[in-house]
């Protein structure tokens, strides 16, 4: 705090008219596993000072991780010299003081800091990581079964399954896992009195598993979980879920090109929400590079579709009391019953667009349910036939037109059941057309994801294969 205040004052003394400073510090520990053994450990401590300077009607953004006082003073002097040689920009200013967050004092108001973090040791981290491996439990089961080495094949092990199906399941070729935890602390100050702090812990587990079938074909998948509270982390079943998802990829079959109902599971549903949010971003709109230009107040999405920003839910992943300008976040509709209710406009862009500022970006997006289905299985049953997409493989979209094309993997669905996996297929279309064909929104969003997007279903989507 003292260093940040000193830098702020020093920048003012050197000729800056206004200053914003953000100090961040993060500490991360990671234990990586390969096939049930510790393969890597990592320890990372990061500190950074970000400096935004307004001088002579000009603006510049700077950062350094060399935080000694003398070095920073020299850095600030050079930064001000750099700002002064830029062209003037009358739209740049700090936010109006009345918009700034005043309730982010300790950094812990949102209950995103878990004191359990302080009790972790290197040994405990290893123990948690090793205990989460499915490969290890599979190996133990295999040893118990006392089967001869000859039956186990050249490499890989089989999973812990019953005697009856042990030879019908594929071998685990590789199981890579990572456990990590971190604490992040940021403090933002500005020259008009802002002092806003945010502190959070994060605990994560992730696995990627590759299996090999009897024909030597490889299939891989992943699973992960993340939470601000250690006790909520789903350590025990992450690896087995990754294995199960990889096994489910076996024996893919092609599906003829054509129009199908698209079901997006919760792991990938945000793929069709993020471009909408980007298109409502101030920079895209101001640069005329948005398919939602001039959309404010218009009903461009289907009746019943409501997307909210809920940034202030205590204990909820990704929530923040303020944005990068220090502006207080608030709960607000982004799309309400199909009508576009807000753009994301920071102070600078709002002045350029001659509109009221809102917030720099959505913080914690929540898509509300639509229809009577609450879970993926209910959606599949309701839809009957279609293609369930469980992952994307590349692709992109055109921000100006909203056209998109993505590689997909998933399952062909008949009568609400998964018939076989599909891969090497593509979906192609336009976001506005896609959303106009929205059929269902379930209520099963994963809380660990940055956006709360449940299972979604759309009709008449072009699939190529």
């Amino acid at each position: 705090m003292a260093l940040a205040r000193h830098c702020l004052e020093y920048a003012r003394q050197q000729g800056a008219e206004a200053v914003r400073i953000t100090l961040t510090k993060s500490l991360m520990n990671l234990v990586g596993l390969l096939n049930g053994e510790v393969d890597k450990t990592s320890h990372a401590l990061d500190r950074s000072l970000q400096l935004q300077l307004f001088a002579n009607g000009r603006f510049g953004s700077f950062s350094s991780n060399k935080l000694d006082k003398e070095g920073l003073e020299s850095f600030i002097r050079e930064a001000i010299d750099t700002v002064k040689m830029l062209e003037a920009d009358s739209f740049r200013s700090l936010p109006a003081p009345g918009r700034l967050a005043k309730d982010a004092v300790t950094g812990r108001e949102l209950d995103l800091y878990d004191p359990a973090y302080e009790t972790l040791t290197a040994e405990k981290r290893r123990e948690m990581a090793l205990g989460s491996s499915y490969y290890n439990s599979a190996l133990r089961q295999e040893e118990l079964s006392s089967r001869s080495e000859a039956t186990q094949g050249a490499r890989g092990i089989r999973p812990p399954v019953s005697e009856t199906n042990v030879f019908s399941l594929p071998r685990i070729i590789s199981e890579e896992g990572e456990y990590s935890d971190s604490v992040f602390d940021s403090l933002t100050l500005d020259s008009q009195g802002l002092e806003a702090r945010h502190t959070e812990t994060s605990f994560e587990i992730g696995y990627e598993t590759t299996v090999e079938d009897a024909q030597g074909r490889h299939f891989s998948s992943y699973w992960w979980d993340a939470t601000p509270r250690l006790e909520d982390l789903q350590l025990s079943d992450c690896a087995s879920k990754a294995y199960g998802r990889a096994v489910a990829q076996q024996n893919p079959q092609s599906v003829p090109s054509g129009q199908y109902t698209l079901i997006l599971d919760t792991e990938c549903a945000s793929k069709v929400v993020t471009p909408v949010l980007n298109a409502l971003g101030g920079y895209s709109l101001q640069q005329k590079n948005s398919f939602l230009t001039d959309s404010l107040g218009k009903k461009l999405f289907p009746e019943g579709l409501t997307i909210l920003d809920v940034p202030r839910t205590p204990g909820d992943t990704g929530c923040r009391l303020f944005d990068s300008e220090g502006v207080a976040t608030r709960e607000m509709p982004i799309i309400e019953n199909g009508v576009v209710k807000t753009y994301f406009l920071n102070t600078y862009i709002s002045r350029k667009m001659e509109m009221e500022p809102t917030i720099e970006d959505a913080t914690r997006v929540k898509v509300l349910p639509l229809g009577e289905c609450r879970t993926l299985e209910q959606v599949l049953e309701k839809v009957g036939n279609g293609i369930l997409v469980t992952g994307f493989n590349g692709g992109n979209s055109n921000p100006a037109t909203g056209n998109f094309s993505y590689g997909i993997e998933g399952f062909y669905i008949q009568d609400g059941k998964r018939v076989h996996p599909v891969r090497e297929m593509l979906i192609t279309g336009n976001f506005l057309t896609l959303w106009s064909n929205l059929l269902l929104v379930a209520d099963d969003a994963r809380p660990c994801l940055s956006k709360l997007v449940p299972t979604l279903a759309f009709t008449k989507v072009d699939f190529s294969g």
Partner: protein
Amino acid sequence: MIGEKNFYLNIFQVDVPALDRLIGEALATGGGYADLYFENTTYGSLLLRDGAVTSGGNHIDFGVGVRVLSGEKTGYAYSESTAWEDMLASARAAAQIACSSAEVSPYGTRNPSRGEPNPQADRYPILQPWRGTPMSTFLPFLQKLEADVRSRDPRIVKVMVNLAFQVSDILMYNSQKELKWDTRPMGSISLSAVFKQGNVTENKSTSRSFRCGAEMLSESLAKEMADDIVKGIDDRFAAKRPKGGQMPVVMGAGASGILLHEAMGHAFEADFNRKGTSIFADKMGRQICPKGVQIIDDGTLRGNRGSLNFDDEGIPGQKTYMVEDGVLASYLHDRISAAHYGVKPTGNGRRESFRYAPLPRMRSTYMESGSAKAEDLIAEVPQGIFVDEFANGQVQIGEGDFTFYVKSGYLIENGRLTQPVKDINIIGNGPQALADIRGVADDLSVDPGAWTCGKEQSVPVSCGIPTVLIEKLTVGGE
């Protein structure tokens, strides 16, 4: 550009005896190998938007990474300070990997790269340093480029030019007492424009990125980029989505090298093969492409975005033939995988910064020219697609399925380019696509754009290819 040894030791305020003591601490718990990676990077940026250069900045990133190997296991930690106590804490944290002693295998003597690498090479001499040159010197380039672009087409409503440059001083030391140092420059310019025709909006973008100094900001470069940004815009407005499905694809020379990067480059990175996950894990020495095809990963191209005097493990930059005459000849190795396979490292150990342990990564990946003519390859296709501008790609290592996103191209009908197409994804399977190569033209071009590879960490790369005909890929469409 490489300076004198003491220049680097002074930047990081260390000497060789101190480095030895630090290595000793890193190995104190039984590790078999340790290395130190010091980095001092300065970044600069200028952004022209709405007709004026109103945004810019400088950024400093400084620190040291400590890696300890115990067998093939890695312990890693870093410090943003080179004060002795801070470095010591990092060395001790990294040393935790070695709970029990595990030997690190020495790497082999067989050299998978072509020729002996030259450890004295300077592949990116700097004529006008970025550091020390006032940023105001660079403004006229941005302003002139913007004016030039705007003068070319009245449909342009927005132009954005971003100049980003960085210079990294690197010092590396390891438990084999190898001390290496380097200064790596990088200058990148990205240009984008929004066009409006009636009620229809379209965007185009182009970029250039080289390891060189500020001399890159030349009039000829500005003209070349202005030409690029307006080239094909009429076709972009006229473009349609094709009918999707499997069809022959002609990949235009240059940026189509993304095919090599995604379809095989990642699968040839030896860490994926060491773990058995790559679809090419058991194909060394086997025919994977038609005879005559040579595919290379090269760190020696002068001024190229992917080039390195030394990789991030201190191995000299070199040129590695991954495929020779259609046969899989070499994976891309860092020290760990080279020891695993009993070969010399190929200089592919790379990292985003001192915050990361190195991994096998590509540099500049390209295919050598063949003997066909591009127009003859197109003429062979009765019904298919030609593609020449791309945005991004991806691959699933285990299955080998890769995709890349096409910003522009054309239908091929009866051997001729006809309807323009845009915004489609193409998907294929790596081994199948390589086996399906039906012709290679004589027009190799390495793309000069700002390609960045994002495998766990972001590193600068480049890619290139001559015009190539692939018998069958799946094309997205309506």
